[in-house]
Each structure stands twice: as structure tokens, then as C-alpha cells.
């Protein structure tokens, strides 16, 4: 059984059946890609996994527990971290503070009224944040505000903020959308490095086939709200159904 089990998930928006009957199993420590043409329901599926949407039917189990009806912060505390399409960091805060926040969240949980300690007193958290920032080579940017970073640096920071919490599952929502080829390759390298270094499951939603085929071990193709096929990258490449979904039926 996989770490993430999606069974019979359906979601309807008014007259639109965004997700039909989605079954998906993401194996532990694998890289699983979900691809599909525009409007296939990739984002809806992702939003069902992270607590932003509640599906009408079906179940989503993570690590043996249901995630349905839980709030985003609870799901994150269970061990699912999410990287956004456009990097989401705390723009007004310094890079160092950006890194401290997930460390505090990991140690203290969703809320703690620690109003009388100073940050410097929390040596374990400070040290953890510093080590992580050195890992991603940002130690010289500690006191810059996150908003002043380049897009690539923001992405690296966001990724590091997720990883410092030691998530079991990292969800990536089109991590290379709108990136130049060089940046895309950097992101691929970064993800490969992450995969090599730690025991982590990565689920990735992506448009860019280059990214998908260089990273994924399993691929699920989604079309019109239902999974078409699930297979290894090599088998997906030549699969007639996939070409049909992407190129339209007349060319199939």
C-alpha cells in the first residue's frame, strides 16, 4: 500500500464534473507525477489532497489516516508539504526569519504563545535554520527580505522551508511553470538532489514533459477528471491513449 491512497474521489462544481472517479496510489519514497492536458482536473485533485477542497465522494488516506475535512495546517502537521506554482514565501520577512518559522512550526505545533522568549534564546531552532540555509547556499542572504530575492532563490527558499520540516510527502504544483530552460534544469537538479539525500515521497503535478520524464518513477495521466493510465515513464511515452488525450481524437 502506498503512502498516499486516493480512492474513488469525485468533485463536482455546479454542472461541471471536475473529478470523476480518481484512484491513485503513491508509493513510499517514489516520485510520482500527475500529468494531463488543461482542465484535466490536476489542480482540483491537488486541492483535495491539501485540505483546500473537500471531495464529494471517495477517500484520501495519507499514512493510514484520512485527510478529508482537515484544515491545511493540520494536513501539513501530518507530514504533507506543498510547494506552490509561484513561490510563496514571507516577503516582508528576512530569509532567516522565513526559515525560522517552519522550524518553530515543526517543534511547537500549530500554535504556541511564546511571547516572552527572544528568538536568540531558542538555540536549537536557530541552529537548525542556519544549517538548512547553509545547505541551500543562502547563508550570505540571511538578512535580505525574501521579497527582494530572485525568483529562483525564492523557489529554493520555499523548497528549503518545506524540507526543514522533514515532510513525508512533498507536493509540487507545476514547480517550473513559466521558467526559462536553465532555471527548469536547475529545479530538476535540485529535486534529484533532494531525492538522493533523504527518504521522501514526491508527488509532482507538471505540464512540462521534460521535467516529468527526467524525474518521475511512476506517471498518472489525468484527462477530463479521470485517470487514463498509470505506468512507468517509458511505457507512458508511447501510449496511444495518452497521445490521444494530448493531441485530440482525430490525430489518435
Amino acid at each position, binding site marked *: 500500500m502506498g503512502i498516499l491512497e486516493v480512492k474513488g474521489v469525485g468533485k463536482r462544481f455546479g454542472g461541471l464534473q471536475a473529478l470523476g472517479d480518481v484512484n491513485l496510489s503513491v508509493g513510499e519514497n517514489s516520485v510520482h507525477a500527475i500529468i494531463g492536458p488543461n482542465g484535466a482536473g490536476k489542480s482540483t485533485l491537488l486541492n483535495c489532497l491539501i485540505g483546500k477542497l473537500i471531495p464529494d465522494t471517495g477517500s484520501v488516506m495519507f499514512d493510514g489516516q484520512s485527510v478529508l475535512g482537515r484544515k491545511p495546517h493540520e494536513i501539513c502537521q501530518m507530514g504533507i508539504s*506543498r510547494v*506552490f506554482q509561484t513561490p510563496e514565501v514571507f516577503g516582508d520577512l528576512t530569509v532567516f*526569519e522565513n526559515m525560522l*518559522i517552519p522550524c518553530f*512550526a515543526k517543534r511547537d*505545533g500549530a500554535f504556541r504563545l511564546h*511571547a516572552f522568549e527572544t528568538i536568540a534564546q531558542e538555540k536549537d531552532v536557530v541552529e537548525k535554520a542556519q544549517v538548512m540555509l547553509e545547505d541551500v547556499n543562502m547563508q550570505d542572504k540571511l538578512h535580505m527580505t525574501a521579497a527582494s530575492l530572485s525568483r529562483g532563490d525564492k523557489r529554493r527558499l520555499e523548497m528549503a522551508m518545506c524540507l526543514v520540516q522533514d515532510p513525508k510527502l512533498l507536493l509540487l504544483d507545476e514547480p517550473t511553470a513559466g521558467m526559462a530552460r536553465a532555471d527548469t534544469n536547475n529545479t530538476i537538479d535540485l529535486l534529484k538532489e533532494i531525492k538522493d539525500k533523504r527518504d521522501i515521497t514526491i508527488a509532482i503535478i507538471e505540464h512540462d514533459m521534460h521535467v516529468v520524464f527526467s524525474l518521475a518513477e511512476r506517471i498518472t495521466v489525468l484527462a477530463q477528471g479521470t485517470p487514463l493510465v498509470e505506468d512507468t515513464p517509458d511505457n507512458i511515452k508511447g501510449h496511444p491513449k495518452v497521445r490521444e488525450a494530448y493531441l485530440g481524437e482525430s490525430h489518435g
Partner: protein
Amino acid sequence: MLGLNKKDTKFLLIVVALTMFTPIILQPFAEGTGLAQFNAGYPDLMQRFAIFGIFAIGFNILFGLTGYLSFGHAAFLGVGSYSAVWMFKLLSMNVIPGILLAVATSGVFALLIGYVSLRRSGIYFSILTLAFAQMSFNLAYSVLTPITNGETGLQLALDDPRILDGVNNSGSLPVTNIFGLAMNSSTQIEVLGRVWTFNVGYYFCAIIAILAFYLSLRIFRSPFGMMLRAVKSNQQRMNYTGLNSRPYTLAAFVISGMYAGLAGGLLASMDPLAGAERMQWTASGEVVLMTILGGAGTLMGPVLGAGFIKYFENIFSKINDTVLHGWFSFMPDGLEDLLVVLVHPFVGKGWHLTLGILFMLVVVFLPGGLIEGGQRIAALFKRKRSDDDNLDPEHHPKQTPHVAE
């Protein structure tokens, strides 16, 4: 010292010194001279500096850090005042129980209002708090007359029980005190040919204001304060980092409500009466103005803003046509009258017009408030100095402080 780093300790000591010497600094002109009207009134006005400083410091913990703009903070000020006056009526004229009750009730009140209002953010949050404050005002004004004494306002009476104080046979109303030391008593010291007055009420307020400031400094520097800034910066990222933003904002709301209650309790301690108008939306708007004018999100800004508004309110509203005629009397008659007519709308009762213009100018040209103005002037001097050292600014990027001061 006190859990602060060197820079903050220095900062706190400066604030302590300024507060302690305010009665001297703000009365630079000797009594009886023509400029005496620019002295800050003592002790009333200076008490107000301290009290509204506390109010604004508390408001800034909510608005400056989390970005949630409450338009109903005066409700907590009013609740604090009523609580304190009831304590003076029932228990004792000693201000300590009154102030403690004021902080406690406003805290409970803030918890209730905050719990409901914080379900929404942005403009909807502001409207909800405004609605709650207006509800409180109207309740205090009419429905709850047995508790609030309606439009007359809650006052002391000779036949109040005052259980701890014993029977009052003097035939006059007792005064608020702290363990026997009356709030309105003063010590006068003659130095340098002038009489300096040191008022118990002011110093009581000042010491509490310093404590309140110290507490807010600790909150600003704490992990909790950082989380509050994270709420303002990116709530989505915060939730997906495993943090629940709701209890953080609620805690900030309650803390700032308690600050407002403390300010309300102090107002009642200086002058033991409480009226419903203290809860009106104009009063809520005033603390917003103070905070933005001084610099929202900075430590000193709200205090400066509070002092600035209270000082100029006092000075400008004292100026009437007679004073204006006195100023312009050196000019020919026609010109003198014209100038008086031109200036008239901006002074006296028209002081709010001046405040409005000032506020617009600050928001447009100094979005960071008076603090930013000060920083710009400081930067101007620094640049001149660094030019001499031939420093390349490119290679000395300005590091952003953890929290702006």
C-alpha cells in the same frame, strides 16, 4: 538586560528617560510669557500622552504586526473605563483593583468580539469590529443605562458603598489614589528660577506606559511577534507551513484589547467618570490615525503619533480669534482681518481640518509615518558622512532590521 539585546536596552532606556523628563521637556516656556500657550498642559495633557500612548501601543500589536485593521478598539477603552469606575464605586478608590478589573473585562470582551470578527479578514473584519463597537456604544448609551448611567455617564456618588475604604463623612467626593497617595497631588520644586511641578497621576501613568512599552518590545522580538508578522506577510504560506493563523490573530486581538482596557482604566483613574462617547467610532478612528501618523508596525511610531495628535489637538483648539488678532496685530487692519479669516477654519473647533490635511500629507509623502520622516532625515546626515569615507553603497547593502524601529 531584561531579556533584551544591547540595542533594545539602549532604546528602552531612552524611552524611560524621555517619559520621566516629559514634564520638563514639554514645558520649555516659562509661565506668563507669550509662548506659554505652546507648553503642553500639565498634568492633564501629559497624562493623556501616556494613556493614549498605551492605547496606540496596544493597537499597533494588532494592526502593525498582523495587519488586521480594527475599527472598534474604542469599545475596549470604554469597557475598561466603566469597569474601573464601578470598582471605585463599589470597592475602593485605590486605582489598582480598578485597573486590574478594567484589563480583565476588556480582555474577555475582546475574546468574544475577536472570536467572531476574526472569521473574516480585510475590510470585512474592519466592518465587523466597527459594528460591534457601535453596538457597544448604543448599548452603553441607552439600553444598559442601569450599568452605564446612559448619556450622563457613570460617576461617583457620596452614597457609594466603597467597602474597603470605610465610611466617608467628609461630604465631598473622595479622590482616586494609590495606597493613599492621591492621583491629583503634586510636588513642586523650584529650580533655575522656575517652578517645576511633578504630578503623581502623570508618573503613575508614565510608569505603566513604560511597562506597557517594554512588554510590546518583548512581543515584537519574540517568536510570537514573528508569527504575527508572518500573518501579515503571507497567511497562505503560514497555513501550509503547519501553523494555525486564527489563534495567533485572536491572541493579538485580545492582547491589544487588554491594552485598550488598561488605557481606559487609567483614564478613569485620572478622572473618575466614564461616558458612552468614549466608545464612539470617532474614538476608534483616532487610534487608527495615531498609529498610521506615527508609523504602523514600528515600536515608537504609535506613541509619537498619540503624543503628536493630543498635543496639537490641545494647542490648536486653544487658539481663538482673539489670539489670532493678537498675532497679526502688527499688520495693517484690512490684512490682519483677512489673515484671521483665512486661518480661522484651521484652529479652534476647526482643528480637525488641520489634522485631516496633516494626515493626508503624511500618508502621501511619508507612508511609514513620522518615524519614516525621522529615518529619512537621519539617512540624509549619514549619507553626507559616508561620502567622506568614499564608501561604495553598492558594496554595503542596507540590511533590513528584524523589526523596524
